[in-house]
């Protein structure tokens, strides 16, 4: 069953993985080239709060890389991959009619769902780890070696955060019989959870804010709170999906 899931997800994983690698390498390799341009832009027609953010992020290589990858591109591309993988897990089987082949066999629905979820989670983890390795290597080549501990903790947080998106997409995949609606629902809810991060004094309510801890990346603190929040929030939609799938009639 694992092999079948891997074969089914291979193109999604390869495309998103390559895109992630390109983005992370570009982020890590272009700081020295882009810094002067970004500094000039920040002093021109931007709102003040954005100017401050750009100045902060371009003030050091580490912050630039964190801001580009863990806070933005990595979160986004992995969220898309998680939503694409999760949306098809059950709804894909239902829409193609293969759910009857699957459920007609003597294995429990829980095992079916958890196996599918685990394979998708492993794919996410693999893409995130490969990207982080590429970041470490590119940064070292560019002459800005990164702290391995910070990269590992940030990658872990990012993965936990993306498991929320995966669980969410899986939950809607159990509810709907087509792949598009779970995908859209998961992405819309993920975007909604990011909105408080753009509102002054509301950043503590932004879920995506916990997926990318700047202090953890810079090695200033261990993100215990963020880890707990990401873990709990990742597990909740999975439990709901399991409960619903157990009861769902086909």
């Amino acid at each position, binding site marked *: 069953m694992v092999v*079948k899931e891997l*074969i089914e997800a291979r193109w999604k994983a390869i495309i998103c993985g390559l895109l992630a690698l390109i983005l992370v390498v570009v982020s890590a390799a272009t700081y020295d080239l882009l810094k002067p341009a970004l500094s000039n832009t920040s002093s021109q027609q931007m709102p003040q709060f954005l100017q401050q953010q750009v100045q902060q992020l371009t003030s050091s290589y580490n912050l630039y890389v964190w801001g580009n990858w863990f806070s933005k591109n990595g979160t986004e591309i992995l969220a898309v991959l998680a939503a694409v993988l999760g949306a098809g897990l059950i709804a894909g089987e239902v829409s193609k*009619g293969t759910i009857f082949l699957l459920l*007609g066999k003597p294995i429990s*629905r829980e095992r079916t769902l958890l196996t599918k979820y685990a394979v998708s989670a492993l794919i996410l983890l693999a893409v995130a780890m490969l990207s982080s390795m590429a970041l470490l290597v590119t940064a070292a080549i560019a002459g800005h070696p990164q702290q391995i501990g910070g990269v590992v903790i940030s990658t872990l947080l990012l993965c936990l955060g993306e498991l929320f998106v995966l669980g969410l997409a899986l939950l809607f995949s159990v509810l709907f019989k087509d792949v598009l609606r779970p995908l859209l629902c998961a992405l819309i809810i993920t975007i909604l959870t990011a909105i408080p991060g753009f509102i002054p004094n509301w950043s503590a309510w932004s879920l995506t804010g916990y997926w990318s801890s700047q202090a953890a990346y810079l090695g200033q603190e261990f993100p215990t709170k963020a880890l707990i929040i990401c873990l709990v929030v990742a597990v909740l939609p999975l439990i709901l999906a399991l409960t619903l799938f157990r009861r769902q009639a086909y």
Partner: protein
Amino acid sequence: MSEKKSTSTAAVKKESLPAFEQTTAIEIHDLVVKYGSKRAVDGLTFKVPTGAIFGFLGPNGSGKTTTIKTLLGFRQPDGGSARVFGYDVASQSLQVRAHVGFVSETNSLYDFLTIPQLCAFCRSISLEWNQRVVDRYIGLFGLPAREKVGNLSKGMKSQLALSLALGSNPDLLILDEPTAGLDPLARHEFLNTLVSEVAAEGKTIFFSSHILSEVEAVSDWVAIIRKGKLVLCDELDHLKQTQKVVKLTYTELPPATEIEMLNSLPGVMSLAQEGRSVRLVAHGDVDALTQTIQARPYALRGVETVDLNLEDLFLEYMKEKNDGR
């Protein structure tokens, strides 16, 4: 709930069947399955003997697929009960599926896998797997053994689905409209294999269909359902012996009172008059019925008793006036 918690957390062990259950493969009692407020299956009761080739008939939307889905635990019953080899379909679904091979109406398989990959997948989610059996059937059907499933024709996919269903050595094979959409040649090959190979091994075959000729060709038992209710369940041979067409030809046009009287005779299911000819569909003791008719004071030129085929029977039982018999 699809399965009780006690049986749903892990795969079950395939146990050998208890002696009692070796006579009854499926036992359905007063089964009710609803879609919202609509009763798709409405008080269905019948048994499928072990070793039978059981044709499950009914028009589209009569509840055949819903019954099958309930037997396999895809849906939960809203009333009544159903047992497969003694295992309750609601609470022991895993045990039921351990003894059942299923081919769905859609014959949907994973198109992106090759046949060996699909076999490996099925093996990974089955309690028991005999690849030699699968290879034998793949060879028997002449399927390209290493081909990608997506490249197979619809007929080939049906044959592959049957081969895979047999890989887990099931005691009962449930087939939902297995030949739907197949051309006559592919249908013939499929059914021929079903009877000559699968049934010969002593497996019970429960299959739904609305192609009456194929059911008649292979089944030894039939059940007909309509609007979720059982209309008929009997051995096909017994059915043919007890259900006949009686053709009466009168020397003069029979009066309306005589026609009404004929229609009210016990055993007469339906009557059609065309001039001096009257066609009765009768069940039960047909000889006694013809003797009663011949004793009537209206001159008969001829009385002919003809066997009913399954299609005639089916149409007869589908008539609105016979609802609830």
